[in-house]
């Protein structure tokens, strides 16, 4: 007799989402594009310093307030542009979805994440930072113990920079307060440029996961973590080997969890949500978190456009996200596992086919119309960051394509495309942090609005630029529908 399967398919729900931003204006100069440009034109460095914004301005920047949940994405429609010129009244560094952290505290958090004495901080700077971190609600005594007595004299830092090629770290424009060292004399994979990418990713991911634990009390119940960032952890024998998910989980005290990383460029978070939902639905695990830290390399990526337009350099944040997936609790929004859309290898690369596979086909399989979707969540890049560089308004482009497809299908007429795009789309509000910007910034808002009854159904679809790695000309994409929970009725 064949025993009954213990893995009958169950509903998976998204219980909550948390977000994290670290405002790091002094790290911008070390982003990939700024590093290369400053090397060829050293005079540019002063522009990076002069075009910083202070922390309170970063907090009151409307897109950042949307990201942490203090504003709704649709609030941006009534916010005057350029957004950077108008401070959000009563802006707060804390929000219902997470927080925005200043650079000094984030450097302290990075040091807490540093198990190998890679990040070196100056003694007095570290002492002041400890005072700030001691009052942070998500930092514990054992975190502070990792910092106590770790500060070094400035002369030591200067020596590391001059003699070992360590990466200098600054605050307030040009005040040297630390450095990032290499971790192996010969290994190109353990140089400061890569290690600081990974450390910032780990620290921002850990903060997002700590917020998730604090908000949902899931620290001990999490069994599996899926990392979906774009970092590559490893040494010369295993570049990109991972496992950032587990490293982040350790920092968030998830003692009962293991994990692994899912790699798919920008659409990795949506892949990870689908995979995590499968783990829960199959009964393998009951509580899974999808987690990602931010992208250091993308800091200041479009600075040329910002300088040209007399703007501050606004690509100055490292972002994180954590998503809690669980068994059906009869109230949280359900990940419709029969709604998964995917860009298959044989799909081709025309936009029409990509949208057909990610948007239309999943709806047809469920006998739904495009007008049955309250909001479409796509690439949510803040247009204020991309338009000045000539990269266009990516969310708007995508929403117009969706609207056009709805018109071609006869669900709306041609004159309604703009109205459809506005009603079922959003203005972009995400920092240009690659995987972070790809559909998932909407998730927190969608969970909240579906649970309150404001929305019924949201389709998430994300695209990934696989061709950037020069291993294939293919792009990628996946999608799913998040729907209100009918409580088992």
């Amino acid at each position, binding site marked *: 007799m064949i025993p009954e399967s213990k893995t009958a398919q169950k509903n998976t729900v998204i219980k909550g989402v948390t977000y994290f931003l670290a405002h790091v204006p002094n790290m911008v100069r070390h982003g990939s594009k700024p590093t290369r440009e400053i090397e060829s034109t050293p005079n540019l460095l002063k522009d990076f310093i002069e075009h910083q914004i202070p922390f309170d301005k970063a907090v009151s920047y409307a897109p950042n307030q949307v990201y942490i949940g203090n504003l709704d994405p649709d609030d941006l429609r009534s916010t005057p542009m350029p957004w950077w010129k108008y401070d959000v009244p009563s802006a707060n560094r804390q929000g219902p979805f997470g927080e925005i952290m200043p650079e000094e505290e984030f450097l302290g958090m990075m040091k807490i994440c540093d198990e190998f004495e890679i990040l070196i901080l100056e003694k007095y700077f570290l002492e002041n930072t400890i005072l700030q971190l001691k009052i942070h609600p998500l930092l514990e005594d054992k975190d502070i113990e990792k910092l106590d007595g770790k500060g070094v004299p400035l002369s030591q830092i200067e020596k590391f920079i001059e003699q070992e090629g360590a990466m200098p770290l600054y605050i307030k424009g040009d005040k040297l307060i630390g450095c990032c060292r290499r971790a192996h004399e010969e290994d190109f994979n353990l140089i400061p440029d890569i290690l600081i990418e990974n450390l910032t990713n780990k620290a921002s991911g850990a903060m997002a996961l700590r917020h998730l634990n604090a908000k949902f009390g899931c620290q001990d119940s999490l069994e599996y973590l899926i990392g979906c960032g774009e970092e590559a952890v490893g040494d010369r024998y295993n570049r990109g080997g991972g496992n950032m998910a587990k490293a982040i989980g350790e920092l968030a005290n998830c003692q009962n969890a293991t994990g692994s990383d899912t790699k798919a460029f920008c659409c990795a978070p949506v892949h990870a949500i689908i995979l995590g939902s499968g783990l829960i639905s199959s009964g393998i695990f009951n509580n899974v978190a999808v987690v990602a830290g931010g992208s250091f390399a993308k800091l200041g990526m479009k600075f040329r456009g910002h300088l040209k337009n007399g703007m501050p350099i606004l690509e100055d944040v490292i972002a994180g996200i954590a998503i809690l997936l669980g068994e059906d609790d009869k109230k949280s929004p359900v990940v419709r596992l029969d709604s998964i859309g995917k860009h298959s290898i044989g799909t*081709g*690369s*025309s*936009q029409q086919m990509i949208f057909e596979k990610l948007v239309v086909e999943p709806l047809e399989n469920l006998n739904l119309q495009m007008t049955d979707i309250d909001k479409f969540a796509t*690439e949510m*890049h803040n247009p204020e960051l*991309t338009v000045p*560089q*000539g*990269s*266009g308004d*990516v969310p708007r*482009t*995508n929403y117009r394509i969706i609207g056009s497809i709805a018109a071609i299908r006869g669900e709306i007429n041609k004159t309604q495309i703009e109205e459809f795009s506005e009603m079922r789309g959003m203005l972009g509000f995400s920092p*240009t942090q*690659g995987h972070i*910007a790809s559909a998932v910034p909407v998730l927190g808002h969608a969970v909240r609005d579906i649970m309150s009854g404001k929305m019924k159904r949201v389709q998430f679809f994300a*695209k990934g*630029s696989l*061709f*950037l790695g020069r291993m294939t*000309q293919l*792009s990628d994409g996946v999608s799913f529908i998040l729907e209100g929970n009918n409580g088992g009725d």
Partner: protein
Amino acid sequence: MELKGKKIIIVGERDGVQGPAIEACVKSAGGEPVLVQTQCFV
């Protein structure tokens, strides 16, 4: 523009028209793609 017999450099965009899609159009018009790239501008 007559593409027949011309050598073509193609730069597509992920959120617009991707390189291979332009390549297919160029080939059907008798052009000869010599370089096909897709860029991601975000």
